[in-house]
């Protein structure tokens, strides 16, 4: 059980970091980085999410069970997206002769 109360300072610090990250997302979007635009945008989004999950949602300091469920959510979402992508990603591959 955690009745651990985080100091207000921590919350405000996280809040500031989140605001800075939002500004960064917006700023970077206007710089042409080619395919890296989306990578950077998502990396920042993941960072922001981690901050919210760990501090605002108190997962830092929670039991490993809670952490397991958080990770499981993203794991199965990744399965949904990535395995579907294997279909779309390989539809245009040409068969090259005989396989066996």
């Amino acid at each position, binding site marked *: 059980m955690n009745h651990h109360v985080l100091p207000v300072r921590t919350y405000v610090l996280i809040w500031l970091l989140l605001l800075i990250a939002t500004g960064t997302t917006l700023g970077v979007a206007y710089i042409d980085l080619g395919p890296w635009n989306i990578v950077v945008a998502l990396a920042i989004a993941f960072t922001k999410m981690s901050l919210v999950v760990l501090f605002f949602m108190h997962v830092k300091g929670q039991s490993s069970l809670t952490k397991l469920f958080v990770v499981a959510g993203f794991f199965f979402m990744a399965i949904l997206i990535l395995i579907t992508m*294997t279909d779309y990603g390989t539809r245009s591959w040409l068969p090259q002769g005989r396989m066996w």
Partner: protein
Amino acid sequence: MSTETTERTPINYLNATTGWKSWLFTTDHKRIAVLYLISITVFFILGGIFASLMRLELTTPQGDMFSSDTYNKLFTMHGVVMIFFFLIPSIPATLGNFLIPMMVGARDLAFPKINLLSWYIYIIGGLFALGAILAGGVDTGWTFYTPYSTTYSNAYVMPAVVGVFIAGFSSILTGLNFIVTVHKMRAPGMTWGRLPLFVWGMYATSLIQVLGTPVIAITLALVGLERVFHVGIFDPAIGGDPILFQHMFWFYSHPAVYIMILPGMGVISEVVGCFSRKRPFGYSFIAGSSLGIAILGFLVWGHHMFVTGESMYASMVFSFLSFAVAVPSAIKVFNWTATMYKGSVAFNTPMLYAFGFIGLFTIGGLTGLMLATLAVDVHVTRTYFVVAHFHYVMVGGMVMAYLGGLHFWWPKITGRMYPEVWARIAAAITFIGFNLTFGPQFILGYMGMVRRYHAYAPEFQPLNVLSSAGASILAVGYAIPFVYFLWSLTKGEKAPANPWGAKGLEWETASPPPTFNFDHTPVVNEPAYAYAKDEEVEVV
């Protein structure tokens, strides 16, 4: 219920309070289980009527009994009702609701009000589905494939989609409740290694419900929005991909097959152990394989799409993974069989259903391997071979287990025994009728008879007649228990707390149990299925 004997009957969950309000506003998991039992029986009968009408039509090759439109609505509503309103809630919502708190030694589920809410959600979803049926029916097939469902169908697709969408949340909330209960509500000493195998099966089921159902919810929501707005993300007219719908649909609907079968496997593990008077062979492997099925089951959905034009490389991956998911299922079958080895096997009705389950599930599973084989699937998919395959798993497996479990725990639920002789007869009739109904359909499928056909080529008639004849026997097999279960409510012999000599916390409390299950919080200090003392356990 048995109120006339209140003086002599101790207070239990059935007679503790009376009046319809005490049922409709109850938060007692056992009463909610009974509410579910009644409502899913209604849907089972409804779905059964649709099936009978279809089998009647199929006795002749010409479509002479119903118009093709009516026939299409019949098979759609049979599928929708049976899958979303009978099979998905069947064991979880009735036996699971009733037993899980007792098996883990808790007074109730973690969220009793949410449990009641989930029943109401289920009923609201069911009413939408009934509304769709009464308004004139749906003709999309239970799979709601786009663009037929979004653009072309003139039937009442919206109420059906809304009904399934709503019922999904009932399934989610039930799963959520079970997961939290198993994690947080176990009695002192009830470690994970001591949980009954039914609880393991239900826990794995709940994981699938929680992870998969939201995806079908959003998918059907997108279909509904596309139907309302006439434009949406699956619409080929603007570059949308109907195959993406199938990906998202089967991401839930393949694991949903395991929602249907895993609880059945849990029941069989209990029944086989009890009537062999032995700890199930390879407890940890049966438990682990439930989790294995739950996780691997999420990786194989593409095997429904081998002929759609899915990338052949993706198809190969899905085919391979489908074989992988067969391994944990095979482990279970072997372990149940091995449990009987050197056991003390009694032939009570639940055990007869368990025999039926093992045999029919084996056949259903092995034909599933044929469907997972790429080249063979190309020929037999979308034919009666598939119909036969999943009825062997769903009806031969799941419904057999459901009936077996209902017989097994009927004394606990109602405090009355069912008539053993009639029950054995019914089990035998069900087994024979089932095989006659669906066995011929394997051959029909390989011959090339396509499913969802209202009229068919005349060379398929003899086997169809056989199948319809089997269906009428099967209907008798289902009607007999319905009658004697009702009869037993008042006329059945009073049940003792543990009529089978079974192990498990639910057998240590009275039949029927008191409202809070146990008079004292139980403390567990022996392993699961301790039919003999620890030192007598042989490790091979």
